Structure formats: structure tokens, C-alpha cells
């Protein structure tokens, strides 16, 4: 008996359709502000290419071409790090245990990048990405049955619907847009080390969601290396995050 795969469309229930809608509105808002969509899929690179071509060269005449690039180097984290700028988007098509994607998603906060994660099987922990668009199936063949294709097709279709509503492309009220917002205030911002501490000064160049800055790292020690993740408070690095340690989004 041949195995019959469950149609991808049958997974799009009330919850997943709401997740797709919220993700599409965020995508449209970021594109509206000039974002580029970076796409990684270390296990299934063709999915990354399909997403990029979908946005760059729309199948429907008259829809805007939007900037999107598949990052398929052997080290997608390094590629995403150098490619992305604050305000950009990072979309992964990957299972929850894909190490490069787990790493990229936690670092994206320091890069100032909004994250989306499409996958199936066990879910990533809540907050692992800004938008988790998940197919709740343990069938390992899901990535080859058109289900992920459906997911990013829907994302593209809904995003373009949002462009017909220019009034809603501004940030929603209550979103963090200035320094008084608690979640991104100076209470402990995630930063990635760009340049290790320069000898006696105890200052290291770090990268945060708002750009690059020099931070006092004397509390953490001199062995800080590029790409280490630290928390910054009031201009000083107060904690170093170990590999695998989660970040609060």
C-alpha cells in the first residue's frame, strides 16, 4: 500500500490561519519600511530559493517585486549576520532542532531583525521566533508534500493583501517605537560582540537592535570574542549568554 500524505491545507486551522495573518501584516509593515527578507533552510535549500523567487518575481502580474534573498552558504548564521540590518526580516524553513536556525533566531534580536519560522514536527519553544508558523504533524515527509510550499504561498498572498491597506502599514499602537517601551529599553538588551575589547579601555564594539555601539565590558572579562552574545544595561555588558541559552523575546 502506498502511503498517502495528508494535504497541507488540512493543517491550516483557526490558530494557524491567525498566525499566518499576523505574520503577513508584520511582513508587509517591514517591507513598507524598506526591509529585505532573508531566507534560510539548511535542510531544504530549495524552499529558501522558492520563497525568495516568490517575493522577487511574483507569479501574479502587477504585484510589487520585493527584496528577498535565499542564504544557502554552508554557514547560514554567518551569512545572515553580515547580510541583515536593523529592520530586516529573517524567515527559516526548518525543524525546531536545526542548530543553525536555532542560533540564527536567537541572534536575530541583536541584529534588530524580525523572525519567522516555518516547520513541522515538535514545535520550537514559545518566543523562539516572532512568528512561529507550525504544521503539527510528526510525519517526516511533510517537507516534500507541498505543505511548506502552501505555507509560504499563503504568506506571500496575504502580505500583498496588506499592501492594499496603507493605513495599517504603520506600527500598531502600543508597539515599541521609542525608549520608554519596557521590552526593548535599557533593562538588558541583547548584543552581539563585533570587535573584542581593545586592550586597557575595557570597551568592546557590540551590535544591538538599534545599531553598533561601544560597551563597557570590564564586568565580564577580557576573553570576550567576536560573535559572543551579551546583555547590555546602561552602556555596560552585564551578562554573557552561553551557547544554547535562550533569550526572552
Amino acid at each position, binding site marked *: *500500500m*502506498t*502511503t*498517502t*500524505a495528508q*494535504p*497541507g*491545507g*488540512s*493543517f*491550516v*486551522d*483557526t490558530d*494557524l*490561519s*491567525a498566525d*499566518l*495573518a*499576523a505574520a*503577513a*501584516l508584520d511582513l508587509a509593515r517591514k517591507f513598507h519600511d524598506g526591509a529585505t527578507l532573508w531566507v534560510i533552510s539548511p535542510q*531544504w*535549500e*530549495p*524552499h529558501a*530559493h*522558492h520563497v525568495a*523567487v*516568490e517575493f522577487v*518575481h*511574483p*507569479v*501574479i*502580474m*502587477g*504585484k*510589487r*517585486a520585493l527584496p528577498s534573498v535565499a542564504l544557502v552558504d554552508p554557514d547560514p548564521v554567518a551569512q545572515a549576520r553580515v547580510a541583515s540590518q536593523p529592520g530586516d526580516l529573517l524567515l527559516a524553513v526548518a525543524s525546531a532542532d536545526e542548530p543553525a536556525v536555532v542560533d540564527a533566531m536567537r541572534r536575530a534580536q541583536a541584529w534588530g531583525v524580525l523572525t519567522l519560522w516555518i516547520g513541522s514536527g515538535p514545535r520550537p519553544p514559545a518566543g523562539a521566533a516572532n512568528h512561529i508558523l507550525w504544521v503539527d504533524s510528526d510525519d*517526516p*515527509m511533510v*517537507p*516534500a*508534500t*507541498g505543505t511548506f*510550499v*502552501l505555507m509560504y*504561498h*499563503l504568506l506571500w*498572498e*496575504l502580505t500583498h*493583501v*496588506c*499592501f*492594499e*491597506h*496603507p*493605513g*495599517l502599514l504603520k506600527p*500598531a499602537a502600543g508597539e515599541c517605537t521609542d525608549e520608554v517601551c519596557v521590552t526593548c529599553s535599557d533593562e538588558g538588551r541583547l548584543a552581539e560582540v563585533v570587535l573584542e575589547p581593545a586592550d586597557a579601555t575595557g570597551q568592546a564594539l557590540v551590535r544591538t537592535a538599534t545599531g553598533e555601539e561601544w560597551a563597557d565590558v570590564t564586568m565580564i572579562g577580557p576573553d570576550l570574542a567576536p560573535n559572543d552574545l551579551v546583555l547590555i544595561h546602561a552602556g555596560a555588558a552585564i551578562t554573557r549568554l552561553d551557547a544554547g541559552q535562550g533569550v526572552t523575546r
Partner: protein
Amino acid sequence: MTTHDSESTSFLYPFIESEETDAKSLLDDLAASARGKAAESAGLQRASLDEYDDALTAAGTGMAERFLRGGRLYTFGNGGSSTDAATLASLFSRPARGRPVAAWSLAADEAVVTALGNDVGFELIFKRQIIAHARDRDVAIALSTSGNSEDLMTAITEANQRGLLTIGFSGHDGGRMAVAEDLDFCFTVHSQSIHRIQESHAMLGYRLWSVTQQHMARPRNGVHTL
């Protein structure tokens, strides 16, 4: 493709202007739209599998027999279909379960594709690779949502002349693929949406793989061939 910003047509829609501030009704509409399109996708996948049940079994069986003789699979398409062709090739060559067989996408190597496109013309990027690689025990699968792409049609003709098993995935009314005598099997997904066609192509490809796996795991002449 020409693009138009929504601004150029916005005068036609005075009520969806920039005054709109409450996103809730839009989000509700988007979610409903997603569910509607998803249901359409699922229905089309089921209908396509039903329509081609016998032909998919025959094609998958023919593929398995070629793989058992050392044959390999070439997949090809343009744009999004080239990525679906690559996904299909990797389903055969490194499946999450079952027996891997040799398969690759003819768009995967940018050196080869740009060399051929630049030197002999874009319509020959796949045909010239068929000439270089193909043996009579191999299989060629072409994916096109229109069924009309010239670079695919010339490659199919070449593959057929060289004795390959030739399979086409098409859409809309099937286009040139639907009437091509060079195709042993043509699976046309009857839809006007390129997105929904591609989603069904993936499901049809998955069924081909499933039939192939089943056939290759079967004992032959009392002896298990594995």
C-alpha cells in the same frame, strides 16, 4: 514583469485609504482567506491524486524498474518550479525514510546553467544536459505550471529520443505538455492558480516517490532484491 505600486491604483479604492487604523478586521479577513485557499489546495491535491491514480502507479512502477537497473532521475523546471524540481530530486536522493536513488535537479549547478544559457541559448539549458548525462535507463521529470516552457519541451524531446522515461507535471489546460507525444506520462493539475498547481505538483511527486519505494522494496522472483 511590470510592477505597479498600490499607489497608482489607490484612487479607485477611496474607502481603503490611509485613514484605516484598526487592523482587527483585516487580520480576520486574512485568516479567513488563508483557510479558504488552504481548503482549495487540499481539495485540488485530493482531486489530482484521484484523477491520476492509475497513471501514477504505472509511472512510479516504471521509474522503480529503471532505478533497479541503475537508472537515475533528472528533474527540471523554471523559477518556483525549479525549486520544486530540486525538492523532488532530493526526496528521491535523500528521503527521510526508504531507499535513496540517484537524482538531481538540472537547474542546481549555476556554472552549467549560465554556461549553456550564455553560449547556446536559454532554451537549451536542460536539453544540453540531457545530451551529456542521459542513458536509456534514466528518467526525466519536467515541471511547468503552464506546460509551455520551451527549455522544458526541447529537453523532453531529447530525453524521449534517448529512451528515457519522460514525465511532465503541468497546469491550467496542460499546454504543449498535454499534447506532447514525447511524454510517456503527463499529469495536468486543473487550476488557474500557479500557487495551487505547484502545491499539487508536490503531492503528485510525493505519490510517484511512494509508488517507486513500494515497488523497489518488493521481493522479485522469490528473491528480495534489496
